[in-house]
């Protein structure tokens, strides 16, 4: 498999870019934030995204999806990173659809995929503390009749307050499984918390809440879903990095001091050149990791950690440098560059930051 996009993937990416620049530029995020929108995303825009086929990309054709693959979804996510578009694409299509694909029974796949394709929002609930630790799951599942009930508290649940269903990690007989839960089932309490990036997060607690079903595959399904999520996030982070860098380079040319553009100063040129090199590295690992999802590679954990480390380190570098190079204007809320550092930090923490993943990479290699 060549490490370049196919023509079809390239076309999808261009269509996504054009759509997002027109419909959901950063001004759109600013408006959602400033109007204190209760949903925290625009349902109409989300339906249009579904109509573009973005919610169907990874869903197999036999369930009415496009079977286009994760490289496709990754390219769309990259473009949403450029425009910082907030939508349920990560919670619903990247995380929950993947979990159901990996662990859903035939009957449930038909039912859930139909909803997912239409754009019904599903949220993925796993973290229980401030640091991502996939092995730390205290939420428990107990047998109740022919099914299960869940009890526990989840945090940092993306789109948790607007979801119709949750995919929840819980322990049953010492093993971690994923369960699908109706959001209006009994015993659920949710509290929306708006985060630094103006996106939706929630604390969600379950008290003997009945599950619709348990997904098969236990930890295997659980960890693979997380790895797919990490790679998709890395793709979004790459998009945000590219955009922040492009804007910063443009600013270097535009901003004049001492009678010349500040981009003529070698101290700044060298920093820009180093960022360029680092971004090229991110492009390589993100595309490789996306291809490895589609290939069903058995070492996905390593690819995912590599992608999340590199994308995380580089988006931090680039957004920090962006603010410094923009100078005072970069500190103002009027200038859009500040939105990038906010999303960078939130995406970094989601599903493990680079500290977590570098440690994991070393462990996976036996040191």
């Amino acid at each position: 498999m060549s490490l370049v996009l196919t023509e079809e993937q390239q076309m999808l990416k261009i269509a996504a870019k054009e759509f997002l620049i027109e419909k959901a530029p950063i001004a759109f995020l600013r408006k959602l934030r400033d109007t204190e929108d209760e949903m925290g995303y625009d349902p109409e825009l989300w339906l249009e995204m579904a109509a573009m086929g973005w919610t169907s990309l990874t869903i197999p054709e036999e369930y009415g999806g496009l079977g286009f693959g994760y490289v496709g979804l990754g390219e769309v996510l990259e473009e949403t990173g450029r425009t910082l578009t907030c939508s349920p694409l990560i919670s619903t299509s990247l995380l929950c659809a993947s979990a159901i694909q990996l662990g859903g029974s035939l009957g449930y796949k038909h039912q859930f995929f139909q909803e997912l394709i239409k754009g019904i929002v599903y949220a993925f609930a796993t973290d229980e503390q401030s640091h991502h630790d996939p092995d730390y799951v205290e939420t428990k599942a107990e047998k109740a009749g022919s099914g299960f009930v869940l009890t526990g508290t989840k945090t940092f649940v993306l789109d948790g307050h607007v979801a119709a269903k949750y995919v929840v990690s819980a322990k049953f007989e010492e093993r971690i499984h994923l369960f699908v839960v109706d959001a209006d089932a009994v015993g659920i309490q949710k509290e929306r918390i708006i985060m630094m990036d103006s996106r939706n997060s929630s604390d969600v607690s379950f008290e003997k809440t009945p599950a619709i079903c348990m997904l098969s595959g236990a930890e295997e399904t659980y960890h693979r879903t997380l790895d797919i999520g990490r790679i998709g996030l890395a793709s979004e982070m790459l998009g945000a990095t590219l955009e922040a860098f492009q804007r910063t380079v443009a600013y270097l040319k535009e901003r004049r001091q001492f009678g010349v553009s500040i981009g003529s100063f070698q101290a700044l040129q060298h920093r820009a050149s180093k960022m360029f090199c680092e971004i090229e590295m991110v492009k390589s690992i993100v595309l490789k990791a996306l291809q490895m999802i589609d290939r069903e590679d058995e070492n996905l954990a390593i690819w995912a950690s590599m992608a999340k480390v590199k994308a995380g380190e580089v988006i931090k570098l680039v957004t920090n440098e962006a603010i410094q190079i923009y100078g005072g204007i970069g500190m103002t809320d009027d200038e859009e560059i500040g939105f990038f550092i906010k999303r960078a930090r939130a995406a970094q923490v989601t599903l493990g930051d680079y500290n977590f993943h570098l440690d994991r990479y070393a462990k996976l290699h036996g040191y």
Partner: protein
Amino acid sequence: MDQDLNLFREEASAWLEKYCPKSMRVPILDQKEFYWGGRKSTFDSKDQQIWFERMLEKRWIAPHWPVKYGGGGLSLKENRVIEEEMERLGCRKPLLSFGITMLGPALLEFATEPQRIKYLNEIVAGKIRWCQGYSEPNAGSDLAGLQTKAEENGDYYLVNGTKVWTSYGDKADWIFALVRTNFEVKKQEGISFLLIDMNTPGVSTRPIKLISGISPFTETFFDNVQVPKDQLVGDLNAGWTIAKYLLTHERQMIGSMANNRRKLSDIAKEQLCLKNGILMNPILRTEVARNEMDTEIFNLTVTRAVDEARAGHHSGAVSSMFKYYGTELNIQRQELNMALRGSRGLEWESEASSQGFEARTFLRSKGNSIEGGTHEIQLNIIAKQILKL
């Protein structure tokens, strides 16, 4: 296409497994284990000779060069597959050669047909070892300021001047050199590209001893050297273009020299204690992991650049990125290697250390960010040519 390539990969891998001698699949511990070819060379071992001859017969010394010039006529993509498989199986390069990595590409692009036939075939067969005459005592980062002059005189050029930092100048047979043929014009427009046999009267070299205690470079002196006119490559005064083209290849080569090395984490596991499967020093562990990961990602980026070039996207300045990033990774790796080995790594003259292989390699790596255009020059090129700053 991908399928054909996979088949090719399987065949290449099977052939290498079968024909690469075992001793040619262990990491290099001594410079003399590299075979460079040339008039003055001998093989270090029987296996080294067998390996070179088998690869020569297979036409895999320069797999992607046209057959009439001694190559294998394969595509860039197939060439990369062979490189990847050799790396994966730990096969040593059968022939290290500036003729292949630097001069060859420039000749393919700029030389006349008779020049290509003669010089490229000699390179592949390992008959002639080449060195590069670029830098001068007063022309380092400002390479175009070079002063070695070549004056037309009947059917030859008369060359006078001094080159410095000639890699293996004392071991090479021929030198490709930049010379000034016009002092009246803008400095870049008065440079020509000459091929010079170092056996010509008036050529002499003097080794430069480095901080590593080794002398891989020489000063090279030209004292009334007569060079036949048919050894000019390209047009008179058009050498700067060739020089830059060649430099992009040199940079790519220096950047991707990380061939056939042990994994840093394997060295770490051997040198430091593990507790519950985790290296005891958490700071070093992090740095090892980061270097190993970045190296893996760098290699992916090399692959991606090849794939993109095949798909028709190519940027010359990318070689500056590879040079800067690849050498930086190697420099960090050498620092870590020293940290992992502690006092053992300092051994300079001992049997156990192969006469200070690690320490000398560490010191040598300090030159990586200077030679072939310093880090700072590479970053300038990226800023100007790619970012248009």
